[in-house]
């Protein structure tokens, strides 16, 4: 529960540098803050506001609009079960009911040990594999009730730690270059770069 770390301040400064107007960096910076603490602490939001020269209320006003940004604590694993049409037609509601019974919390709740927050979500664009869910925005399709229980078990024991980072970690690949189009001295590289290909 703190302000941004020095490393995250640097990341945020880099983000600000990518936009013609600094406030455009607000949502990307909030993702950094959420990665740091798992949710948006008041201190981190205030720090983000200072960096952008906007008030904490303006930061909160933007953050509170968006479903992915949490201004209250969230479990380490955010389990997002879809019940929108394609999933509704393929057992998504039954999957959500099973998830509630299995985790012992209603949708919107967090388990006592802080491991899981369960939420019902709108379409997450994985409809070819309905019913589907996401854990910290890593997608799982054609989820049967048995598969759900195995998934929870794997998450609890850390067997999926590589595939599913803690809640708030959105993108594990960092942009490695600033804006360069205005740099007349830069010369393009002719050959393809090797060894930087794996996204995840």
């Amino acid at each position, binding site marked *: 529960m703190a302000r941004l770390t020095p490393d995250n301040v640097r990341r945020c400064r880099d983000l600000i540098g990518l936009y013609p107007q600094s406030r455009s960096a607000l949502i990307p910076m909030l993702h950094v803050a959420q990665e740091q603490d798992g949710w948006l602490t008041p201190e981190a939001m205030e720090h983000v506001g200072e960096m952008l020269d906007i008030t904490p209320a303006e930061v909160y006003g933007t953050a509170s609009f968006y*479903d*992915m940004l949490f201004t209250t604590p969230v479990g380490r694993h955010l389990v997002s079960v879809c019940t929108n049409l394609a999933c509704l037609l393929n057992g998504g509601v039954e999957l959500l009911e099973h998830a509630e019974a299995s985790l012992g919390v209603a949708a919107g709740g967090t388990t006592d040990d802080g491991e899981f927050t369960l939420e019902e979500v709108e379409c997450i664009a994985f409809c070819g594999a309905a019913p589907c869910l996401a854990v910290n925005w890593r997608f799982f399709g054609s989820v049967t009730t048995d598969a759900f229980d195995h998934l929870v078990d794997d998450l609890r024991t850390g067997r999926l730690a590589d595939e599913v980072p803690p809640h708030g970690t959105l993108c594990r690949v960092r942009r490695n270059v600033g804006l360069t*189009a205005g740099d007349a001295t830069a*010369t393009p590289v002719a050959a*393809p770069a090797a060894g*930087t290909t794996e996204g995840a």
Partner: protein
Amino acid sequence: MLTDAAAIVTARLGVPNSWTLKAYLETGGYAGLRKALSMTPEEVSAEVMTANLLGRGGAGFEVGRKWSMLAKPRPAYLVINGDESEPCTYKDHMLLEADPHQIIEGTLICAYATGAAQAFIFVRGEFALGIERITAALNEAYAYGAVGPNIFGSGFSVDVVIHPGAGAYICGEETALLESLEGKRGFPRDKPPYFPAVKGLYMQPTVVNNVESVSNLPWIVLNSGEAFKGLGQGRSTGTRIFSLSGHVRQPANFEIEMSKTTFRDLIYDPKLGGGIRHDNQLKAFIPGGASAPWFGPDHLDMGLDQDAVGKAGSMLGSGSVIVMDHTTCMVRASWRITRFFHRESCGQCTPCREGGGWLDKILHRIESGAGREADLDLLLDICDNIAPGLSWPPQKTTICVLGPSIPSSITSAIKMFRDEFLVHIKEGGCPFG
């Protein structure tokens, strides 16, 4: 009929590590950008105009015409819309994960043709793997010299920024997307005066194009607008990805030739949907996402043609076809869609914010057995307040089209399945259990 038109935007699907620069270059990647840079921006625009590429996001506006409407003041910006959120649409999600370099190449061709000062690719925040893949791809593209200063020695320079969203359906609407990109709540802007081509990002002229739309550009530049126009019929040219979902045996994304392919082909062909699960009867299908009015089996032989579907009172929209078999409760289906719009309303306009909530509650009470006889008229009356006349395309009492999209499923369900509503009300419950 199912034609043998080759895939354009999904050609690399299944290529090992298709998202890497290495795989991309081995399959002809960035040749379209090189060719575009050897042409004038006007020549590139002319090819796209000839192709008659219709926007693949939902509104279906001609891409070339959109570029030509860009107002003169500079700087101008380019924003690529990857905020795919229309229920049951999952094509851009797939393209972002499988072929991010193609999106970057298309973005650069568009930036060159329109003279954009900077390009932003707005990616739906939930697409974590997609964001990682396209971020890695952009790093590679910079190192390769395809982005940044003096691209491939052409003298053309532009930067591209990947911008993650944070979860809001409304940000797929282009003016809401621009607000969000400016670090604000995703509130749509009034049009006029805030047409993006005139007053867009930072109040500057801005082109907003969909991810699938720009993914077509490398092919169009390499093969010509005429070649693209040679596919499909009438205004519906080229191929298009259709996201098929619901009660079909093989729900998936299929890239098929527009217009010539029919809904029957898409749903029943063994190479595509493979028919209804368990050999059940088709009850209804939605031809273009949750916002679109529904069709029944009598529309199966219609081509996947933007104008034909529009004339028949619906839309191809986001290219999402949702199939419902005879076991589906249509009250429940329309309630679920309505609840979605109620939840996703940004809250600026009263007819959408309040009307959506009322419709949600009334449909819920019908489905749960507490409906009243007068509820059907009440539903239609509220719908009429949101979209006066209940015509197609809908009239608006709101800033954006989210509100006027709410009546689609309700009026369709009542028109096609009125008896089913009445059974719910008379028997005090859902006959489907």
